[in-house]
C-alpha cells in the first residue's frame, strides 16, 4: 500500500490496544522496577477507551477526526505522564492529518514528526534522558530516511529504530520521570515508556503491512 487511510489508521488503534492488553503485565513489571508500577495498567485503560471511542465514529471519518478522538480520550482517561504525552502525540497527528481521507508517506512522516515534537515539548525530555523520546526520535529519523521506499518499508525502518533506541538507553541512568529518583539504580533497567512507544510503532507497521 502507498497511502495511509482511515481503515488502516483504525486497524492500528485496534492492534495497539490489543498488544497493550497482551503486554500489560510486562509494562507494569518494567515500571515497578524503576517507576510506580502503573504503566501497563494506565495504557491498557486508555487504549481500551480510545478503541471504543473510535468505534463510535462515522465509518467515513477522516484521519484527523480519528486521531483526535484517540488523543482526547487518552488525555481524559490515562492520567500519569503517559496520558498527556501520548494524548499530545495523537492530537498533533490529528492537526497534521486534518480532514484528509488518506495521506501519502511523506505526509505520514510530517505528521509523525509533528507528534514527536509535541511529545518533546510536553515532556521536556531530550535524547538520553531514558524516556519514550529515545524510541520515537530515532524512529522518525529512520522513517524520513526510508520514506522514498514506500510506507511499509519506512514504518519497518521506524519500528526497528525504535526498538534499537529502547535497547540503547537501557544501560543509562534515567534523568526524567519517576525513574530519575533512583539515580544510579535506574541503570540497566529497560525503560517502560520507550517500550510502549516501540509497541506503538510496531503496531503501526503491522497495521500497514496487513492492508
Amino acid at each position, binding site marked *: 500500500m502507498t497511502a495511509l487511510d482511515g481503515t488502516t489508521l483504525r486497524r492500528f488503534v485496534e492492534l495497539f490496544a490489543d498488544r497493550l492488553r497482551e503486554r500489560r503485565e510486562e509494562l507494569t513489571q518494567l515500571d515497578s522496577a524503576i*517507576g510506580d*508500577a502503573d504503566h501497563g495498567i494506565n495504557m491498557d485503560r486508555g487504549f481500551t477507551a480510545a478503541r471504543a471511542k473510535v468505534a463510535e465514529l462515522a465509518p467515513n471519518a477522516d484521519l484527523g477526526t480519528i486521531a483526535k478522538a484517540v488523543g482526547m480520550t487518552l488525555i481524559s482517561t490515562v492520567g500519569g505522564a503517559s496520558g498527556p504525552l501520548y494524548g499530545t502525540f495523537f492530537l498533533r497527528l490529528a492537526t497534521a492529518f486534518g480532514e484528509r481521507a488518506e495521506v501519502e508517506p511523506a505526509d505520514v512522516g510530517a505528521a509523525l514528526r509533528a507528534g514527536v515534537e509535541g511529545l518533546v515539548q510536553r515532556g521536556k525530555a531530550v535524547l538520553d534522558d531514558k524516556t519514550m523520546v529515545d524510541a520515537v526520535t530515532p524512529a522518525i529519523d529512520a522513517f524520513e530516511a526510508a520514506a522514498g521506499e514506500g510506507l511499509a518499508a519506512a514504518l519497518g525502518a521506524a519500528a526497528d529504530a525504535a526498538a534499537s533506541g529502547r535497547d540503547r538507553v537501557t544501560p543509562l541512568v534515567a534523568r526524567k520521570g519517576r525513574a530519575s529518583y533512583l*539515580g544510579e539504580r535506574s541503570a540497566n533497567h529497560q525503560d517502560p515508556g520507550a517500550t510502549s512507544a516501540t509497541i506503538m510503532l510496531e503496531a503501526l507497521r503491522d497495521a500497514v503491512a496487513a492492508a
Partner: protein
Amino acid sequence: MKKLINAPDAVVDEALAGMTAAHGDLLKVIEPNVIVRADSPRSGKVGVISGGGSGHEPMHGGFVGMGMLDAACPGAVFTSPVPDQMLAATKAVDGGAGVLHIVKNYTGDVMNFELAAELAQTEGIEVSSVVIADDVAVQDSLYTAGRRGVGGTVLAEKIVGAAAEEGQDLAAVTALCQRVQDNVRSMGMALTSCTVPAAGKPTFEIGDDEMEVGVGIHGEPGRERRKLASADEITEALMTPILDDGGFSSGDRVLAFVNGMGGTPLLELYVVYNHVAAMCRDRGVAIERNLIGSYITSLEMAGCSITLLKLDDEMLRLWDAPVHTAALRWGV
C-alpha cells in the same frame, strides 16, 4: 493480595461513594470524580484545589472542607488525575477571585495540572499554581525530575487554605504557598512494600531485615536499601538530611510532622517523634507545633516520613486557624 476490596477497578469509585455517605455535610462528589466542598463556590473567596493519585488517603479528599481545600481530584491509585478533573474542580470552586492549584512535583501531576490550567484560563478563570517539591531524598535535582512533593503538601494545604478562608487574594495566597514550599523539607522510609490493587502484587520486594531509605509515597524505590536499624537510628537517617538541607539552626521555630505511611501504628510514630524532639532540642530548634499520624500514605506500606517546616508568625497563626475537614478538625 489480601485487601478489603470488592473489585480492583472499583476501589476509587466505591471509596468516594463512602466518603460522600460519611461526610455529606462537608463535601460532595461531582463528575468526573471531583471531591468538592459542600458549600462551593464561595463568592469572592480564592479557591484552593489539589489532587493526585489515590492511595494516599486522607490526602487530598480528607482535607476538603472549611479552612483547607475547596476541591480535590483523585486519580486512579498512584496515578495522577486527568485534566478534565482539575478543570471541573476549578470551575466548581471559582468564586470570582481565582483558583490556586497546589501540585505535588511528579511528572504526570505537573503535566496534567498544566493542561487543566491552560484550559481554565481559556474559559476566563484566573489560575495560579505552586509545585510542592520537599523531598530531600532526591539529591541532584538538576539531573532528575526534581524533588518529589510529599509531607510538605499537607502543611501547605492547611496553611494556604486558612489564608484563603480569611479572604486573602490570589496573589497573596500563591506567595504564601510558595513561602511554605521554600521552607519545608521532608524525607521518608519504608519497612514493607505496598500493593496497587490493579497490579495485585507488591510494588517492590524487600527482605525481612531490610528497609528502603528515601522512599517516595508510591512505593517507588528510594535512594538506598539498608539493613534494618533501630527507630532512633532511622530517625537520624531522615532528620540529618532534613536539618542540613533546610538549614534549620538554633533559634528557628518549626512545625514537626511525623507521618505514617499507612501500615505503621501510632505507637511507633510517637517513638519516632520522641527522637525528632530530642534532635531538635540538641540543635536549639524550637518545635512550636506538631502533627503526628497517617496523613499522606502509600496504601498499606509500613514506614514513616518526617517533615519540618520553618514557621513565621503568619504561618503559625494560619496553622492554628479553624479547620473542619474529614481528616483535620480543630477550632470549630
